[in-house]
């Protein structure tokens, strides 16, 4: 069947990002889902609750009293050996914080769509990446989607990634709040049978409920072994890029759509490039197309996997460029830009030659990021490529960070 599936012309259906996530969850048919509402994620759980009520899934839906409890319920259920999912946003992820570390530390392959939204204060319901970037050191794998199609495809692949016996790590599938979560777009969906054949059965190595093979979960671990256990938690992260690529290759073979750790858009022969993740990558592609039509050697890297950070693969692609602009949809509060910038810049440190590299913080609290904004970033990169610094004084290599589209 696998060789012929690729030839199938699939019907495109209209789904929002939230509907695409819920649709994928329905097809995955998890054993347990814990649900707590938060804008702009609420729809995912609302739609999924309908699937439960209508008997379209066999899932045990646990309605809890907070996101802290949602992740706690997921931890208990996944430790018992059940395939477990939830979804959240913003303050909800923040409230899960201590449980995120526990899920990863216990090597529990929980899968969670995460609808990116700004963090309070001030209160804001719109998109930025402050929430997921705050969870970057928790031990969760993080995938980012440009559109509703990628949300759907990433949720399905996430099950295989999380449950891979070499990883057993929780996976967060990020989608931009409202911009993707509430926008209707064409999505090519697969049949339930295709999805279930692709993800396979959940085969947990251990189960709390297996009384014949008792295990200890969540043991006290002081100066004697804590360090060794934390060190061992890094090990699967070191292999995770391989597993993510294997799953993507299998996905491409079965369904015909190819995914990478990051997408290279017009990188061949590029002099300079933007690195960005999420929906903004789509807008940036339009700018790159126009620049290339004018003979300007602009490129774009769309980061799909942020955890683990594909530092070597990225550096190999970026090191030969003249200039790189990293766009962050969150503020690192470090006084030197955002988290994606820090990591891309760090990845390039040992390379010689290496490009000039600058940071643009944009879109906080849902501020629109326009074609003009992205065009100014490429203009800056052209100046930096030519002169080593920006001619208009907006950005220089010595002055790393520009706030794009803010009133100052």
């Amino acid at each position, binding site marked *: 069947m696998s060789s012929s599936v690729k030839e199938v012309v699939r019907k495109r259906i209209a789904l929002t990002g939230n509907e695409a996530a819920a649709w994928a969850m329905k097809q995955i048919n998890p054993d347990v889902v814990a649900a707590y509402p938060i804008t702009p994620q609420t729809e995912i759980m609302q739609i999924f609750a309908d699937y439960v009520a209508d008997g379209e899934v066999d899932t045990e839906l646990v309605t809890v009293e907070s996101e802290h409890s949602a992740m706690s319920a997921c931890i208990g259920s996944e430790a018992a050996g059940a395939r477990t999912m939830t979804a959240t946003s913003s303050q909800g992820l923040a409230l899960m914080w201590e449980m995120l570390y526990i899920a990863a530390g216990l090597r529990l392959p929980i899968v969670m769509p995460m609808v990116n939204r700004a963090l309070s204060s001030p209160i804001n319901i719109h998109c930025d990446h402050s929430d997921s970037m705050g969870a970057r050191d928790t031990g969760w794998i993080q995938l980012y989607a440009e559109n509703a199609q990628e949300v759907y495809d990433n949720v399905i692949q996430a099950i295989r990634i999380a449950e891979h016996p070499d990883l057993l790590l929780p996976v967060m599938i990020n989608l931009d709040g409202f911009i993707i979560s*509430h926008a209707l777009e064409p999505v090519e969906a697969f049949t339930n049978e295709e999805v279930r054949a692709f993800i396979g059965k959940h085969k947990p190595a251990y189960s709390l409920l297996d009384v014949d093979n008792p295990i200890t979960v969540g043991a006290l671990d002081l100066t004697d072994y804590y360090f060794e256990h934390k060190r061992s938690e890094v090990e699967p992260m070191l292999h995770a890029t391989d597993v993510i690529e294997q799953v993507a290759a299998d996905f491409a073979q079965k369904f015909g759509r190819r995914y990478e750790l990051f997408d290279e858009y017009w990188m061949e022969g590029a002099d300079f490039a933007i690195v960005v993740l999420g929906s903004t990558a789509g807008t940036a*592609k339009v700018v790159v197309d126009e620049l290339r039509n004018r003979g300007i050697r602009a490129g774009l890297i769309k980061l799909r996997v942020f955890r683990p950070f594909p530092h070597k693969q990225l550096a190999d692609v970026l090191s030969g460029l003249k200039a790189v602009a990293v766009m962050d949809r969150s503020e690192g509060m470090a006084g030197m830009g955002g988290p994606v910038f820090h990591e891309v810049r760090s990845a390039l440190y040992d390379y010689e030659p290496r490009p000039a590299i600058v940071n643009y913080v944009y879109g906080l609290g849902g501020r629109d990021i326009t074609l003009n904004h992205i065009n100014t970033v490429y203009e800056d990169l052209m100046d930096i490529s030519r002169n080593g610094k920006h001619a208009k004084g907006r950005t220089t290599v010595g002055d790393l960070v520009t706030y794009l589209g803010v009133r100052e």
Partner: protein
Amino acid sequence: MSDLTEIRWHGRGGQGAKTAALLFGEAVLGQGKYMQAFPEYGPERMGAPVQSFNRISDGPITLHCHVTEPSVVVVLDPTLIGAADVTNGLPPDGIIIINTDRPASEFRRQLGLNGQKLYTVDASRIARETIGRDIPNTPMLGALVRATKLVNYEDMIADTRKKLEAKFGSKPGVVEGNIKAIQRAYEEVTSG
């Protein structure tokens, strides 16, 4: 992307501006084109000015910024004119379609149109007579299709019927009322 068409819907909370954009998006997709449909999310109150948007193209659409220069504007509520800048970004060859019982000439002056095509239809009356309530969004779909010819009319009716049946299957009167509303607005919209 040169064939990209962008539409902005103006309405008041409760008039169905979001649903209109979603229904139109589905109809576009049903005809094999690519589309986006999305509302502007702000304070969501009944009666407050709201907007929603469509993008339509023959190829995949990757833009995810706001729509700022729509070539088509649909106004669900004439009291928004003056209260909201409905012609903002509308180019001289653009199209504006207004739900009103007043003569088009009044709006042409008031909006200071410079070449844009103006269409009017009394969608509120049509909605009251067909659906039983002043929900002007579906009749304005009919007016939009007549004014822009962006989709095939018969296919759009069939698609919308399917979508409404899925949502209001237990209330056949709602489906028939809305379809009738679209058909009447398609017939009654006039160019002014």
